[in-house]
């Protein structure tokens, strides 16, 4: 189960979401995933993006990217799942946006970090960022909005 991330890093699953009352500005949530050799291919099969720069090592190299790169949307999916796990319900995520700043390559471990900015009227806004194992940004300027479940 190594693909699910290192122990100790919040891999929140069922029943591990925080209570709505614990969601407050400054609170943080994390999720870690590694891009294995097969990850871009599996993501392509599930999400439909078969651009050869994600699949074919030669094309990835020809594109000057050093090999196949992970679909930005897979990193984005991980970021959204970090928020889903935090609020405990996928239907509570209402809006999300982010900018991709650097390709994720095979062997990279991506650490998603969310930080709650504001909570008001049963809704929270959090910033989202992702770094690789060298601490370099792969995704930044991320914002996610969710219902907290308070009063639901």
């Amino acid at each position, binding site marked *: *189960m190594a*693909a*699910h*991330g290192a122990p100790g890093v919040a*891999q929140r*699953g*069922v029943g591990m979401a925080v209570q709505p009352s614990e969601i407050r500005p400054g609170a943080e949530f994390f999720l870690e*995933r*590694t891009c*294995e050799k*097969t*990850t871009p291919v*599996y*993501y392509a*099969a*599930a*999400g*439909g*993006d078969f*651009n050869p*720069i994600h699949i074919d090592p030669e*094309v990835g190299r*020809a*594109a000057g990217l050093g090999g196949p*790169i992970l*679909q*930005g*949307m*897979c990193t*984005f*999916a*991980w970021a*959204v*799942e970090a928020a*889903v*796990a935090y609020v405990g*319900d*996928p*239907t509570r*995520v*209402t*809006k*999300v*946006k*982010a*900018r*991709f700043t650097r*390709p994720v390559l095979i062997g990279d471990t991506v650490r998603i970090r969310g930080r709650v900015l504001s909570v008001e009227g049963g809704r929270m806004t959090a910033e989202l960022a992702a770094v690789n194992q060298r601490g370099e940004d792969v995704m930044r300027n991320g914002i996610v909005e969710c219902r907290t479940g308070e009063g639901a």
Partner: protein
Amino acid sequence: MLDRKHVGRSYGPFLYEAGAEKMREFAFAIAGDVPSPVYTDTPADVLPRDYWDRDFAKARHGSLVAPPTFCVNFAMKPFFAAITDREVGVDFLLLVHGEQEFEFLRPVRPGDVLSTTGVIADICEKNEKDFLVVRTTTVDAAGREVVKAVWTAVIRRA
């Protein structure tokens, strides 16, 4: 560089019928597993039950629900159509995904028949790179909005 005359060019509607197993496979893939019921035992420790456990999801949501970003399977279609449109002339090899934005108006459920349209909302140049922005809207069979998205491609110079 890309010609701004393509701003306003539209794509679709494209139809997509959501299915439970495809939704589960997507959930497996983003949890780090193989998108296949043959190869994957549901990783219940990391995967919300809302995505795979029929009874749990039915009690909570009325049916299984898709992971929010499952919408790439249908909402990306007009973006793909734009970046592969010969008239627009994007070089696929020089393209990377620059920015993404989603607004989720309701969860996607098995059996949903979804229709997506998109329009090139902007073409501009920044730091020697071309930016192509496509806005998409997905509606259900009753015409209610399901997902709105903004897709930004960044095209590097050769």
